[in-house]
């Protein structure tokens, strides 16, 4: 039964994510004094792409062909590691639902993303793949510092255990180090979703045409879904630790979760719509320094015992 719910968790996210993307596109259009596409446009885009065939340049290897699937699988695995429809009572599933599992799956996703970019031999994809890697250096340590505070505070790396602990009030916002860590973590998770001003992966207007520059058709559709799923996971990662709203009824908690994530996703428009994007060695370095200092503050607070 747990597996059944897990499947529902994954499928419902895949089905709902494009809707929230469509809503955010519509909202963005309103800000830009345009009419904008219908909120179902992302579904239509994906459907159209799925109908198209794939092309492959001579310089690519098998990595190019399999990476869309690998990306999808790793994003799906990440999403499944979030304890939404199952809790600590499901011993088998919750043993995988671990902070470190999520971190490593995230790293795997990024690794495939980079390798796929370099493999195309497209100079822009190569440049932006290297940037994607650099971006990872900036974000990961902030995320890890925040998570260390939570792990030490809760005494476990198990997500469903932490969730239960926080929901029952044994651990949570009363503790300053936890609430400070929440700020830095949300920041980093936003960066991880790869939206402006941090969106180097698809920075099509700048020189680096993006890691995905060479992908098209079905491959691109699969990658798009994988990226949407990853964005949902990243926002969900924050929600599961810092704002857990889990109910006994798995379906209810799934619906609440999707609504929460979708809300965050759409609200991201207020950040990504305004202003230009950062260049890697000016903006990102400087702004991630803020996030790092917030994370370090929370670590210092934890060491001081508060």
């Amino acid at each position, binding site marked *: 039964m747990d597996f059944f719910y897990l499947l529902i968790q994954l499928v419902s996210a895949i089905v709902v994510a494009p809707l929230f993307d469509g809503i955010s596109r519509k909202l963005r259009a309103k*800000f*830009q*004094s*345009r009419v904008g596409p219908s909120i179902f446009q992302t579904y239509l885009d994906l459907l159209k792409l799925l109908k198209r065939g794939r092309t492959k340049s001579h310089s690519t290897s098998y990595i190019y062909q399999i990476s869309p699937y690998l990306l999808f699988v790793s994003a799906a695995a990440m999403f499944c590691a979030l304890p939404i429809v199952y809790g600590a009572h499901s011993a088998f599933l919750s043993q995988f639902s671990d902070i470190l599992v999520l971190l490593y799956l995230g790293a795997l996703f990024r690794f495939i993303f980079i390798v796929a970019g370099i493999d195309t031999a497209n*100079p822009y994809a190569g*440049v932006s793949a290297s940037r994607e890697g650099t971006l990872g250096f900036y974000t990961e340590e902030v995320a890890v510092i925040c998570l260390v505070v939570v792990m030490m505070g809760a005494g476990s790396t198990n997500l469903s255990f932490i969730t239960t602990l926080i929901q029952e009030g044994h651990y949570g916002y009363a503790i300053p180090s936890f609430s400070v860590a929440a700020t830095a973590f949300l920041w980093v998770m936003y960066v991880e979703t790869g939206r*402006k*001003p941090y*969106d180097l992966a698809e*920075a*099509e*207007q*700048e*020189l*680096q*045409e993006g890691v995905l520059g060479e992908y098209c058709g079905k491959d691109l559709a699969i990658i798009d879904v994988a990226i949407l799923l990853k964005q949902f996971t990243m926002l969900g990662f924050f929600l599961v630790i810092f704002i857990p709203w889990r109910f006994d009824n798995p379906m209810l908690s799934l619906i609440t979760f999707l609504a929460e994530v979708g809300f965050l996703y759409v609200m991201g428009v207020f950040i990504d*719509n*305004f*202003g*230009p*994007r*950062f*260049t*890697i*060695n*000016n*903006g990102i370095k400087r702004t991630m320094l803020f996030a790092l200092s917030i994370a370090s503050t929370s670590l210092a607070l934890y060491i001081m015992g508060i």
Partner: protein
Amino acid sequence: MKCDKFIEALSTRVKVLEVTRQCEDQVTALVELNDLPEAVRFLYYDMGGYLTTMVPNDERSINKHYALYYALSMEGGKMFEGDEIAQDEKCFVTIKTLISPDSLVFPSVTPLVPACVWYEREAYDMFGLVAEGLPDKRRLVLSDDWPDNLFPLRKDAMDYRYRPDMKDHYMEPEYEFLRPEGSGIIDVPLGPLHITADEPGHFRLFCDGDTIIDADYRLFYQHRGMEKLAENRMNYDQMGYLAERVCGICGYAHAIACIEAAEKAINLEIPARAQAIRVICSEIERLHSHLLNIGLACEVTGNYNAFMHIFRIREYSMKLAELVTGGRKTYGNVVMGGLRRDITGVEIKESLRILHIIETQVDEVWDAVMDDKRQMSRWKGVGILDKQVARDFSPVGPNIRGSGIKRDTRYDHPYDFFKQIQFDVAVVEGGDVFAREMVRYMELKSSVSIIRQCFELMPQTAIIVDPTFHVKPENYALAYVEAPRGENVHWIMQGSAQKVFRWRCRAATYNNWPSLRFQFRGNNLADAALIVCSLDPCYSCTERVTVVDIKSKKSKILTHSDLKNFARTQKESPLKDLR
């Protein structure tokens, strides 16, 4: 009279063989071939000139020689306060020299005046005239697989029926880029087709890590051979329309420049109302071009929000163009002797209302952009055009005004109605992208005020003079218009039978490209597209329709009715049997 001072000074330096005057402010001095570099350098640096254009010409049918015309705008060096020639002495001095068809060699001016580099490269491509001492002798305009010994602008070279054979894609020769020495340098090609550029152009960036050390570029993928087309085939009324199609943005400026070159050569004065409407239209063009560029400078950095709002305002300027000329973009309005369409009082009233909307909304959006610290940090300090580099390469338009040099054709050589109009030249120090965009913003404001003044001062006269005129063969003149991107210069030598003997069209961007390399150096790779954009480049301008499908090697000539039917119904693409 104007210009005499410069000719006197020149004759103390080199031997001036002959002086001819084209019109009030244009004089040509014939010098000996070997004196050419010194003569141009003397006028450029010592007397304060900027290179306006250079015209190679095949005059074998006239005087058994090829000729070169280096046209310099004498306006002062403008490097510091007061380094400027008095307003009533500014003029154009052309240095002419003759080259014998037996040698086809002339001494290069480029080592002394770097601004000549592109012109002298083009002289080889088009006429086979070799610049001795030119450091960079690669092809510029023609494609790399163009046959040797075929120089298209020579009067006898090209049989119109002759077409060089097509080569397969893999047979095309590689273009040699000037690569800096050193290890660890990565080539990043930006183009020939790139997502940020809507037109083809190949920029090869040489990077060390993220920093661009040097850059080289290959353009002219879309050379349309307009200069050849106009020669001997078109009459002056048709040429205005051809010139308007040089560019999609500043077409009107080209049309005016082209027609005025012809008008100047026969000293034809057009009615004041026509002059005013020409000014109005070219200023409307400036409105929409600058709005386009400021919008794009936001979009290239990822600021789509500002881009969309600026484009919303741009729509009003298109509406304005529609009111004044009847067309949103291509106006087809200029003819020899005046204009084809007048404005009514109702249209003027409505135009003033739209101008007010544009003025207030531009301010609102610009203030919002200025308040955005992230946007400013992307613009400031990027793509700096050094003042001295600008002096050496004679760039034009916002590009040079952003480097603190007060060069504006409307102010230096007032033409048409500009003699009666008050306006400030927008000059900003700094030379970075921000300075150039600031210049554009200030010009938006001054354009609005110029249009208002024109509406006020416009007299009630006819808009066209009696178009019976006779051109005199071998007469030539230069006409210049400050287009949004800088001055467009057209040089026309008249032939017999109301036709053109030689038309040289120099678009603004042509003068801006050569110094781009210096703007790239030391910048971040991510800013490369922004730097190109801030130049407001126009590829097709610089490069002056049989449809050919390379894949199936089939070609088809579309008839007028084919295209018209397709445009009307959008069905049955005339290209479908090609696919």
